[in-house]
């Protein structure tokens, strides 16, 4: 027998090493169990026989920076040492804030995105950390599944950009993998990006021996599905319309093939603070049913009565529908997805957005 391997990639912030993905796994299993034939099985049975979650963490790389740098926050913002670096303006903006809550949001969450976007060593180290865990998972999968590929990725928020770059960089490093990860031999069965930031956080510098920064441009990279040279067999991008993190430089490819790419926009929510949460994204049947059909390789999953019940649950649990929430955040940025955004502007937007979110 083979299990479906689902690699889970987290977003910004510190995550408890062994337990951060537990709530993610729980909501996925709970929702999977609303559909036959999985409704007959206990969560333990499902995890033992059908699905294996592989949490992919990289926050420890940022944690090393966070602990030491926070002590020097004031010095960094005013120092001539840092002047001229891409992040200086952003750090100066943070230092100018009198609201400690905003500063805390920056140090606890937005710093990760800033380091990923501006610090070449941090970005490279994260790619290395993620690549190692991905391949560790593939080793286990290949052995357990006797060569059958059941590898899927579900990434959230910053994790979408991290996943994109890690997959691109890893595939290109033939000297490391010896050709095992070339598309002719291996393609990820699916990648699902929730609150996709991969376009917003495209690299501005070189972190690969084999590729140029242009090769990481998300619309034209090897992640574009539907070709034999693609890294993935199918790609789904999910956006909650109210989620402000998805607004700047929205991921919205126009020429990707419908046969292998799906763009899902959800509108239901309950609390505004929860619109960016993984659980909010996945609890929506417009997200989890197609996801499960892909993960379990079964397009017939979801009987009419099960779907009807799922939609009722959606209306009950997420009774509000997107309108023009967060007007103060909308005023901060140009919502045209093709307009560039400065780093300082982005940091201010992310800090103020994450302050409104969990």
């Amino acid at each position, binding site marked *: 027998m083979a299990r479906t391997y689902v690699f889970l990639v987290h977003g910004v912030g510190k995550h408890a090493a062994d337990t951060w993905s537990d709530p993610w796994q729980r909501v996925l299993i709970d929702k999977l169990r609303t559909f036959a034939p999985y409704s007959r099985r206990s969560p333990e049975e499902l995890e033992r026989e059908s699905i294996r979650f592989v949490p992919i963490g990289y926050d420890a790389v940022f944690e090393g920076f966070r602990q030491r740098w926070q002590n020097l926050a004031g010095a960094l913002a005013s120092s001539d040492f840092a002047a001229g670096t891409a992040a200086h303006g952003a750090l100066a903006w943070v230092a100018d804030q009198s609201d400690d809550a905003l500063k805390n949001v920056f140090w606890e969450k937005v710093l990760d995105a800033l380091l990923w976007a501006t610090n*070449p060593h941090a970005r490279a180290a994260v790619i290395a950390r993620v690549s190692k865990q991905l*391949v560790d998972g593939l080793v286990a999968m290949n052995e357990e599944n006797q060569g059958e*590929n059941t590898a899927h990725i579900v990434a959230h928020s910053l994790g979408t950009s991290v996943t994109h770059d890690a997959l691109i960089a890893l595939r290109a490093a033939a000297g490391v993998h010896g050709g095992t990860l070339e598309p002719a031999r291996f393609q990820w069965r699916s990648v699902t990006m929730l609150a996709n930031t991969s376009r917003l956080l495209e690299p501005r510098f070189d972190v690969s021996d084999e590729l140029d920064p242009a090769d990481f441009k998300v619309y034209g990279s090897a992640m574009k599905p539907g070709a034999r040279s693609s890294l993935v067999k199918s790609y789904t991008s999910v956006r909650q319309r109210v989620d402000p993190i998805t607004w700047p430089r929205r991921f919205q490819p126009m020429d990707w093939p419908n046969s292998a790419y799906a763009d899902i926009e959800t509108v239901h929510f309950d609390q505004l603070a929860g619109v960016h949460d993984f659980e909010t994204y996945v609890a929506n049947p417009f997200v989890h049913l197609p996801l499960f059909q892909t993960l379990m390789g079964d397009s017939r999953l979801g009987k009419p009565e099960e779907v009807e019940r799922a939609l009722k649950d959606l209306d009950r649990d997420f009774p509000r529908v997107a309108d023009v929430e967060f007007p103060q955040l909308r005023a901060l940025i140009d919502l045209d997805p093709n307009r560039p955004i400065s780093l300082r502007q982005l940091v201010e937007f992310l800090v103020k957005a994450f302050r409104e979110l969990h």
Partner: protein
Amino acid sequence: MLLSILLAALAQGTTPGAEWQVLPPESVEAQTAFERFGDAYSGAPEANWKSAGLARAWGELEDLPATPTLAEVSAAIAAARARVAESAVFDEHNGPRIRRHLLLEIDGVLRAMALTTPAPLDSEPLDWETARTFVSGRFERESATLTVDDATFVTDSMFFAGEPSQVVLRLDLKSGLGGATPFAYYATLEQAIEFRAAAARMLAIFGTLVQPQLERTAQRLGEIDAGWTNYLEHGFSQYPWESWANGWLTDFAWSRPPRSQWVLLHPELGLVFDTRSTRSAEMEAALLVHGLGYVRYFGDERDWFAGLSATASITDDASYGWGFGPTLHFGHARLASRVPHVSVSVLWHDFEDGGNEPVLAATLDLWRLVDRGNELLYSSRLAPRGAP
């Protein structure tokens, strides 16, 4: 019309003029065995079809050893081929074509194996460089979606997609959010099970060949990750401005952690030993600032480093005046949690008494050891004297 377009696109691949016999869903799904083994047409991880008698019979084929020779691999694939060629389940409906397509693919692998140059010795384990010439993901099941006008069709059991040998076991109709509904079958249940068993056998053979190289890849990535951890977390500490500068000044890639590190305006607390008198060595706390320096890392995992900086120093004791001189840095990443990195300086201070002989200074990389509170520590040192 719709059906013919669909079949041309999905089922026939690029074979001109070929037509597939459509098996009505009712006829296939009415079989008693369908309820249990019908997942042969999908990718359900349980794969109940593997416990069907037809699939279990494939288990009689001998397993490959962990490190097989080319001859052993060749024999295993030939055995799978023979089983497909002789299988009676492919004798009816679309069976002959399904068998032909499957054999075409298996023969492709055997041909590629025969072309390996130089041919490895039969008695030697097959190395990855040889295996990679014929190992592929071609026998994997594919899912596909096709929209024609307003209708959307899906399949979870497409093989050899886009090739002349393309095979689709089943096609469903998809509408709205719910599950797809039956549309057409192109293989009987027995054919689907036999086909899946053959494909699984090929994948298992390839999986055996890939596994050692995947493990080597994981090991190499472990070294790379350790290299980054040692460089960033256990190496000579970097202030934020140094980190950004080193991001642009050092030669590295994600798969090749840097071997170098520039030291730029790097303050450290240390002790200056006034060794001018051989009878009484005085010791003074000092702030040392490494103005410019260079550190080199050694070992595959950047285990240890050594470096040199140009350093300025100032102490609380005004009689010491300013000091300048070179500093050597040493550290070992694996010992970093127990033994701090050490810097040793030879400094020429502008003593008030007119002396200008060198003194020794030593610093521990306290920044690395004590993360929090450093700013206050430095501030208190700097406050009375002003930074250099």
